[in-house]
């Protein structure tokens, strides 16, 4: 069932309904169109405002049409607030974090789902429970650990874990591990158990079974999870807020909190910045929508 959820079409539930009358159909569509407009409006308005110079909105008011439209707000946000620099910080954190969390979670899920030790169920429960905790529960001791733990150069430029890219990536890896393991083990459970037996008969080691038999079959789930995790980690605001200095090393999502007020002095600039920073995730969503939705479905429905 879980495996099928990814591949099956989102609208496969098409069926005729005898209660559907033309009048109800019109009402339904009117309601849906209303909802769609309400839902799109905040984003559409942000995009619209981002193209209007401050002087124009000042003259005509924000709720108005006309005047000039240009890219000045984007140029200002991009250059003055040094957005490319913060984007790079995000890449330095997101790329290793996503690769490692998928690698490690797939190994854990492999052991938990393909070998039925009693402890595996408990482990999976512990992983899931810890993953559901609000991050604020662990932040105080974690912050003190990050300030006290030593780390050699060049991995850390200040001798400790605080304010470092590797340590932010690590907390992402650890905190996302539960969700990824849960999703992947649900997926792996749907693969026939005879695969393992066949591999054993062929004399394959555990590692070979994982690498050559199970992992290739898990690719759809991995692709879905990678899409989700890139977005989750890109969007994270909290870890870097507490575990990094407010400064030039921050990833983009956290950095905007400091840029607000400092560089983004009017709503037009705020709008341009919001659009620029939202753009990567919106693009990922548009291009990989199936993966995105599939990943969430995998996490919520199981066999």
């Amino acid at each position, binding site marked *: 069932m879980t495996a099928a959820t990814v591949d099956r079409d989102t609208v496969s539930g098409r069926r005729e309904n005898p209660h559907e009358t033309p009048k109800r159909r019109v009402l339904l569509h009117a309601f849906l169109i209303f909802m*769609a407009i309400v839902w799109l409006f905040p984003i559409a308005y942000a995009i619209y405002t981002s193209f209007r110079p401050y002087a124009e909105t000042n003259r005509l008011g924000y709720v108005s049409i006309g005047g000039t439209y240009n890219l000045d707000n984007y140029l200002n946000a991009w250059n003055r607030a040094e957005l490319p620099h913060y984007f790079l910080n995000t890449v330095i954190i997101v790329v290793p974090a996503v690769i490692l969390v998928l690698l490690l979670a797939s190994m854990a899920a492999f052991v938990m789902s393909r070998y039925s030790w009693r402890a595996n169920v408990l482990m999976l429960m512990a992983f899931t429970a810890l993953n559901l905790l609000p991050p604020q529960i662990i932040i105080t001791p974690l912050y003190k650990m990050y300030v006290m733990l030593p780390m050699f150069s060049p991995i850390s430029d200040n001798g400790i874990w605080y304010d470092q890219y590797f340590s932010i990536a690590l907390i992402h890896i650890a905190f996302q591990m539960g969700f990824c393991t849960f999703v992947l083990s649900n997926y792996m459970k749907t693969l026939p158990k005879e695969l393992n037996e066949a591999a054993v008969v062929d004399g394959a080691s555990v590692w070979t079974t994982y690498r050559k038999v199970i992992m290739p079959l898990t690719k759809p789930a991995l692709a879905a999870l990678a899409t989700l995790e890139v977005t989750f980690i890109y969007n994270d605001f909290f870890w870097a807020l507490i575990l990094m200095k407010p400064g030039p090393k921050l990833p983009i999502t956290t950095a905007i909190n400091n840029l607000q007020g400092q560089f983004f002095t009017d709503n037009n600039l*705020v709008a341009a910045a919001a659009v620029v920073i939202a753009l990567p995730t919106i693009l990922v969503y548009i291009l990989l929508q199936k993966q995105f939705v599939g990943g969430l479905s995998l996490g919520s429905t199981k066999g």
Partner: protein
Amino acid sequence: MTATTTGAPGKPGAPGKPERRGRYSVLSRRDKLTLGVMLGIPTFLVFFFVLLPTILSVVLSFTNWNGITPLDRIDFTGIKNYQTLFTKYPPFWPALTHNLIWLAWFLLIATPLGMFMAVLLDKNIRGTRVYQSVLYLPVVLSLAIIGFIWELQYSPRQGFINGVLGTNHQGNIIDWLGDRSLNLWAVLIAASWRQVGYVMILYLAGLKAFDPSLREAAQLDGANERQMFFRVTFPVLKPINMVILVITIIESLRAFDLVYVINKGLNGLELLSVLVTNNIIGEAQRVGFGSAIAVVLLCISLGPILWYLTRSMREDGMQ
């Protein structure tokens, strides 16, 4: 972790349950070592970065550590932090109330609306894909960006809403995000903008697993749509309802980014999560006291988490 390296066959599962997976006698010593490492590294990371700090939060909540004095000179002060928290710390009760309002709003408005949209969009209607994509769009945005996007709507002089209402001039300004009696509701609308789509997608996944023959049978029996949902669909989809309930509760307790971006969680937007962080990033670090707030949050979170895990375990056992 020790369990993984012993390599002993698992005890038989629930009584009467057939042994499902492989034989372990065939595993070589090297294979067992491989399995131990494959499970050991992820487990270490999760335990070191998540479980250990959770336990430390509980331990530190009984101390008055200020984060500076050496670790070996920490004083244990019993439940003093909790007494202070419940009786002498003004923001605590407002924050707890706001968390509960947040939860009630999500449970009664945002989540049901998301489920309702899922039920509507699960039908054979034109453009269902487009509607789904539109409603889901806010879910891919960070809550920090959602804060920005809604500030464009709410801000006093430059915001869209006051522009439309004409309340953006000196004297008649409605300060949606600054007025204590309004701002929590304004933020909840912004939060729901995301939550509705999230719940909708999860519920759509659940609805796909719904057996169409049940629907047909109910239709033959003359059930109308309302009866269909409340008497057939909803009870059958109990597992996904559980997931959605847990996610709704957890999201309400995790709420942080949105209020922090808007006003750092002050002046009517206090939440437990914000109080925890205020005690570490503020001027004076109060590690012990901040941990006590975290433990209150932990106690509230553990209820639904453990309930969900035991229920889903039991259902697994019955399959």
